């Protein structure tokens, strides 16, 4: 098991954001966690990345308990996140953002090749490599955030609400890229999404998060066919 979350609790003061959340992600899977606003999706990813402290439970990665590690050490173990609203470094150039993403990696030929590969994956980033990240559109910033995470060759990619604020055509494009990364490059991906249909369509498995608890799980196909999911999240 690559990532295993055991009865996770997260609270902000008196407010319980997550209670008793347990799930796992195996090598090579693309898993979606869908839920409405305020269900605790971002808290969940932030807890895995080490940005939000745990109030209980534990997180296991490659068989080790990482619950006590600060986020930069988790990042070094190969966990990378595409944060909500991209969070690129606004007054660094696109290229510098990517360099920062590859922090602690030797800037050798392999790095250059990786960079070229990312530029071919997102040609718009190649065009704008010398532009400040703040001047990119919302969609381009999301692509930059994905590229910035990928350049470090993560073993698991956490993606937080990548569809938020993007126009539908771009949402399709971004999900297509994620699917391609998972299918063709074997990258393990954990998606949290409000856009249930788009994310389940590319996933192998999924979970439904409601007010801090996982209420439903199954293969993506089963969830897409599930009556409760259809009425609550797909609007059918």
């Amino acid at each position, binding site marked *: 098991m690559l990532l295993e979350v055991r009865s996770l609790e997260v609270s902000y003061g008196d407010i319980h954001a997550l209670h008793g959340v347990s799930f796992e992600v195996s090598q090579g899977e693309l898993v979606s966690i869908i839920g409405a606003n305020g269900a605790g999706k971002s808290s969940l990813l932030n807890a895995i990345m*080490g940005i939000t402290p745990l109030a209980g439970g534990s997180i296991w990665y490659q068989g080790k308990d990482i619950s006590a590690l600060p986020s930069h050490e*988790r*990042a070094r173990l190969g966990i990378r996140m595409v*944060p909500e609203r991209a969070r690129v470094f606004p007054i660094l150039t696109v290229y510098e953002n990517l360099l*920062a993403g590859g*922090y602690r990696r030797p800037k050798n030929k392999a790095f250059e090749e990786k960079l070229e590969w990312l530029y071919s994956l997102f040609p718009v980033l190649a065009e704008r490599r*010398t532009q400040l990240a703040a001047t990119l559109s919302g969609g381009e910033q999301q692509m930059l955030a994905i590229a910035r*995470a990928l350049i*470090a060759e993560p073993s698991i990619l956490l993606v937080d609400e990548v569809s938020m604020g993007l126009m539908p055509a771009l949402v399709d494009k971004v999900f297509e890229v994620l699917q391609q990364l998972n299918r063709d490059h074997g990258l393990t991906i954990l998606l949290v999404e409000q856009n249930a249909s788009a994310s389940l369509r590319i996933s192998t498995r999924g979970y439904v998060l409601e007010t801090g608890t996982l209420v439903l799980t199954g293969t993506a196909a089963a969830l897409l066919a599930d009556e409760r999911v259809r009425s609550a999240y797909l609007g059918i």
Partner: protein
Amino acid sequence: MNYLVTVAIFIGIQAIAANGLNVIVGYAGQISLGHAAFFGIGAYASALLTTKAGMTFWQALPFVLLITGSIGLLLGMPSLRLREDFLAVTTIGINFIVESIFQYIPFFGGALGISNIPSIRLFGTRLRGWPFLGVVAFFLLLSLLANRKFTKSCAGLACFAIREEETAAASMGVSPVRFKLLAFVIGTAMAGIAGALYAHTMRFIAATDFGFPHSVNFMSMVVLGGIGTLWGPTLGAIILGLLPEIFRPLIQYRMLINALILLLMIRFQPGGILGGSSVLARLFRRRPSHG
């Protein structure tokens, strides 16, 4: 001529300290309004080591760096937990505490300060005037080279990332603790060298030379010249150092003029004279490096 050399020496010394502040505020994005404390710690360390321990300026220098750098490391710790306004207030507090320690503890000379600080000697000659200016220029150049190297390095990039988006930086493997403290150590060590040079040119120091108004002055230099730019703090030090000399007849309005310049600056050129969007910077724009 002598007068001009003296003015240049003071400008150079303040520019070194301002370059140090730029590492902390400009590169790592950690607000510090207590920089004069470290300028003072360097001055006192060098003064005590030369007057009480009988060292020469050059022998004392490594210890001055070590002392200010390690106190910088210690007092940089609040930046690990505090952001922006809280950090600003904390660093002001640190400045007052350091100033009162110098003021009230007899070991530091109390209100009388420390006098008879020896001049700097090089190859047996006492350095005054031009030769001393040469030493100051040498250290100023060193601080500029260090900053240039820092901004091009991996550590510099890590600092920029923390300045822009701390959590995103941490989730890419950049340790905020390490790089914030690194910036404090480098920045305060530069203030320490500047303070030591100050002590040996004045040859008399007292606690009030290192009070909060001086911290504001250092910050003004950085903001005026261009926060986070290589040459900005030096330019700021030159302008704010020359103004009181040029407007000597208006000396009692000095603070008023300084405040006016800063306000106009922040209103019309918030990035400073050499900042990214300023008129001057656009003239000298070089394209950023390609990937």
